[in-house]
């Protein structure tokens, strides 16, 4: 395992992740499913344990010493996350249970003012979590869902969108993935946001695959809301984030009701708390926020710039190495330009499920299926694909192990099937 640059100490980083020393079916684990969920460094795991063992209490409402400690830890995590994405203030960070809830929150609250004739714009490459909530919002309100198509290179077809007048005076919301979880495409959000803002539309970014891998500055992104999820960025499961500009969040109605999201409650009706608490009904994911705060510290200590460079280099190596296997067909951009670290592909004669199973028998973990992006697969006229995705702890030699396993799996499976003919 080689390091990608002199100051990026991959060996030390790998030692931070206990699971990476696991054996799977007698082989060392080669975990290339980080777009699905990332592994967790020891510091994050320990912080969660320590929280439960020493500081556990409910937040806000509990004012005793443990409550004060838990509240300080929870709100401290909010401040860390705000800093991580360069939000104007911690109050712009709403903790949810995952990206999907964050996007549903956006779709419900922005959806509350949609009317028939209004248009919501997504793209054909969205994860279901940034598509189904908008389908439901349009169904509830009579608004129309429209979408960007993709080019043969797997990028948003901006020209077709221009021709069709996709974004226009009826557009109320544009919600797009920052980085595709299948094709890896990095979408030109800023440019599209400028266009949408010219018509007064609100722009939501699904940052689930962007925030873990790229330095994030919500100002530079140019959007109004950004959803992301803890478990893909070295944090725990059970926590996600919706960032939104204060002016926008302030004016939106609440989503889930209950607990501490209230101002005053009477049987006849209620008023709401200030942001972010207006959007956080019930006991929040306290220990999970603490874990995410430590994850963010961990990522910042290594440096998001360094991680982005590392991920880019791993992806470049993967694209090159897969490109040399003539039975492998990579989907999406085949050069590591404006491209995230998910690399999806098909293998001649081997269904992605079978492939996944065969690779797993060699310790190589990839994902097979439609990756929660069924419309994109349908658009590409396939029903599923395999996906390999690295992260800060991935190495070139893991990519090489993938390629070897692919070569073996292809030969094993097609050979056995052929032998039966």
């Amino acid at each position, binding site marked *: 395992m080689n390091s990608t640059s002199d100051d990026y100490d991959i060996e030390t980083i790998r030692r931070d992740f206990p699971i990476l020393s696991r054996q799977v079916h007698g082989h060392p684990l080669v975990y290339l499913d980080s777009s699905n969920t990332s592994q967790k460094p020891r510091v994050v795991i320990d912080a969660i344990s320590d929280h439960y063992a020493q500081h556990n209490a409910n937040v806000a409402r509990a004012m005793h010493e443990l409550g004060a400690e838990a509240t300080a830890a929870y709100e401290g995590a909010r401040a860390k996350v705000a800093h991580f994405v360069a939000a104007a203030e911690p109050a712009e960070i709403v903790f949810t249970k995952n990206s999907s809830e964050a996007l549903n929150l956006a779709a419900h609250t922005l959806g509350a003012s949609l009317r028939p004739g209004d248009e919501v714009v997504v793209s054909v490459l969205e994860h279901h979590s940034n598509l189904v909530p908008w389908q439901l919002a349009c169904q509830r309100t009579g608004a129309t869902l429209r979408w960007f198509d993709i080019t043969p290179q797997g990028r948003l077809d901006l020209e077709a969108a221009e021709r069709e007048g996709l974004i226009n005076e009826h557009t109320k919301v544009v919600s797009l993935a920052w980085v595709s979880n299948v094709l890896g495409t990095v979408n030109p959000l800023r440019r599209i946001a400028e266009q949408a803002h010219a018509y007064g539309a609100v722009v939501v970014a699904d940052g689930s695959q962007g925030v873990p891998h790229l330095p994030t500055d919500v100002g530079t992104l140019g959007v109004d809301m950004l959803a992301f999820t803890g478990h893909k960025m070295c944090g725990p499961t059970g926590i996600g984030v919706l960032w939104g500009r204060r002016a926008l969040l302030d004016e939106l109605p609440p989503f889930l009701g209950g607990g501490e999201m209230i101002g005053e409650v009477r049987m006849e009706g209620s008023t709401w708390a200030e942001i972010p608490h207006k959007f956080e009904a019930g006991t929040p994911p306290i220990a999970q926020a603490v874990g995410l705060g430590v994850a963010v510290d961990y990522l910042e200590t290594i440096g998001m710039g360094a991680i982005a460079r590392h991920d880019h280099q791993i992806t470049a190596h993967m694209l090159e190495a897969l490109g040399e296997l003539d039975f492998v067909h990579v989907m999406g951009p085949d050069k590591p330009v404006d491209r995230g670290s998910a690399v999806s592909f098909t293998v001649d004669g081997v269904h*992605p*499920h079978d492939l996944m*199973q065969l690779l797993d028998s060699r310790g190589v973990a990839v994902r*097979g299926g439609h990756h929660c992006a069924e419309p994109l697969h349908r658009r590409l006229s396939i029903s*599923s694909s395999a996906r390999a995705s690295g992260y800060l702890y991935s190495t070139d030699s893991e990519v090489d192990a993938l390629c070897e396993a692919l070569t073996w799996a292809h030969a094993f499976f097609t050979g056995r099937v052929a032998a039966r003919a």
Partner: protein
Amino acid sequence: MNVEEMYQDIILDHYREKHHAGLREPYGAQVHHVNPSCGDEITLRVDLDGSTIRDVSYEGEGCSISQASSSVMTDLVIGRSVGDAMSLFAEFTTMMESQGRIEPDEERLEDGIAFAGVSQFPARVKCAMLSWSALRDALARAGATFEESR
């Protein structure tokens, strides 16, 4: 259990050359089932003659396990009574949920016993069950009556 054992020759045979594949007329009911987590899908038709299954025809997309399972299933149920087919369904299900702990009855399940190995890979059990669930649904819609075994 290693992966080579899971991909038994019986399974690969059926995968390469599916029996009873294609959609045929006449039929009493048609259903479309998917495995949402992976996108495997099957469209399946049944044609009943009283309580006898005259034909099962299908078209599908999916991995070797789901494809081979459709083929094996049609071999087993075409020409049988609905009641019989549903007891085979129950036996197959029990085997698939056994995680390899049940010795399947070859007399009854014939080529279906090749899937005993698959039962040790929980994530693939759904692949093997897809066509069987579609069958049960289609039979019910075609007006067949049988006891809900589950």
